């Protein structure tokens, strides 16, 4: 009898226990029996038995309160140390930068959060007249440019509020830079709902930009990918035509990047606290 002859024969009860364990992916805090039963639409008894089994196996532990369940150190036993578990955002994104360049013909940039701004760490430049790489190491604040707004929008509300407080007054770069905190919050909602940020000429004028997030397990940004071209060649109408193809690539990318937790965080120096 081959393995495939046995397909379909699985232990349903254990699949359910494993599904309980899987709910810890992206969860930032411990969970209780009632909460879990409501979340998975299973009885409290079933939730309790699944949690107890996972504790016995070392995959969960009771937290300091003694009544809730937290991921356990037994998780370290189901890893293959030969596999590279470290996420390198530049290596990961490189093929997607190439694909976005191929479908748009324009320059594509990869940017990551550093401190209270972002820096561009990789790019694929278009030929001829093109939007060029930011000067190496140039730190762009997180409220100006579409890459900034994408990175900012997928941080937590607390971090965004923290940024606005520390960066105030928000610096103006062009006539369209968002400097009013209320307008910035509206933009955050828009970016979160549509999944990308458009350029408003709010950092550099005379170019058309669109930025997409590279998201982690919890929906936080690993990085932002920006496609940009000269405004007379890459018009807003062109962006609309290209958007479905770009979104498809971005969706595929995010289905893979979401395997990893991001290290992106606005960093404040001690003197800022």
């Amino acid at each position, binding site marked *: *009898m*081959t*393995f*495939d002859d*046995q397909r*379909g*024969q*699985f*232990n349903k*009860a*254990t*699949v359910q*226990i*494993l*599904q309980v*364990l*899987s709910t*810890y*992916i*992206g*969860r*930032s805090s411990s969970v209780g029996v009632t909460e879990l039963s409501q979340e998975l639409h299973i009885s409290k008894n*079933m939730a309790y*038995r699944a949690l*107890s*089994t996972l504790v*016995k*196996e070392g*995959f969960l*532990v009771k*937290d*300091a309160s003694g009544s809730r369940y937290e*991921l356990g*150190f037994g*998780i*370290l*036993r*189901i*890893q*293959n*140390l*030969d*596999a*590279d*578990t*470290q996420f390198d955002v530049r290596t990961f994104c490189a093929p997607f930068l190439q694909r976005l360049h191929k479908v748009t013909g324009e320059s594509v940039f990869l940017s990551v959060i*550093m*401190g209270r701004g972002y820096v561009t760490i990789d790019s694929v430049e278009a030929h001829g007249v093109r939007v060029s790489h930011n000067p190496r190491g140039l730190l762009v604040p997180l409220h100006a440019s579409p890459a900034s707004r994408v990175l900012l929008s997928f941080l937590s509300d607390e971090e965004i509020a923290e940024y606005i407080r520390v960066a105030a007054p928000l610096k103006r770069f062009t006539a369209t830079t968002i400097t009013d905190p209320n307008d910035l919050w509206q933009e955050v909602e828009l970016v979160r709902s549509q999944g990308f940020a458009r350029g408003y000429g709010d950092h550099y004028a005379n170019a058309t930009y669109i930025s997409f997030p590279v998201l982690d*397990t*919890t929906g936080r940004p690993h990085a932002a990918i920006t496609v940009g071209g000269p405004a007379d060649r890459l018009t807003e109408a062109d962006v609309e035509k290209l958007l479905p193809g770009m979104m498809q690539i971005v969706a595929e990318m995010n289905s893979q990047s979401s*395997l*990893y*937790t991001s*290290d992106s*965080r606005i*960093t*404040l*120096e*001690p003197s800022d*606290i």
Partner: protein
Amino acid sequence: MTTSSAAYIFNILRLIGAEHRPLGATDVSQRLGLPLTTAHRGLSTLERANYIVRYQSSTKFVLGDMSRQLLQSFFGRFAIRSLAPPYMHRLVMVTGETVSLFVPIGWYVARISLIKGTNEIIRTGPVGEVWDLHRNAAGQAVLAFKTEIEQKRYLDSLGNRTSRVERKALETGLAEARTNGYVTITDDTKSELSIPVLGHHNAPLGALVIEGKVAARDVNACLSTVGRLSELARAEPARFHNLYDHLDPEHVVLPTVG
């Protein structure tokens, strides 16, 4: 949904995690002493839940996405991991060497993050590896800043695994580390400098390890960088604490490389 029905399936999962090659039902059956049909059923169950995947469309299996994501979620439980990267980058810039973040779990330290150095030759272990506290620089940096009672309890737990002379040398090294604020280990195979990240009441939240030779002139810059990280962590004690500190270290048993 009983524990006994699940136990063999978790054993299969751990076996596949520990192996260095893809495993099929026959391998699992032989290694765990299970009937072949039971091994098939266990693999089907794990595949169904996405914990294992077929290796290159064969009938052999390797760990799947769910296992990888859970590991990342577990690392995410240590809040210091999200705060440390900019400071790790600074250490890389100062020294050119690979920098790792280790966190304490029971009587062990686990590597949960690393940033590769800029030097041509990089010598480091994988993320996820676990060491006994006294066997690497990070563990010793953590141990040096545990309370005297905890230190004694750990050293006592070593029992016959260390000689009286080795224990004395370890105690002296820990006292020096506490005074200096760092640990260095240099032998024929490696050179490491580790600085503890200290949270509320100077409790060790982890340790950063620079995995290469650090010039004497750069040590103060490294101490200052990690000091700033500790300062940030101390400012938010509710966020930066070890979620597993309430567990009895004697009850935490992990496979080590050290």
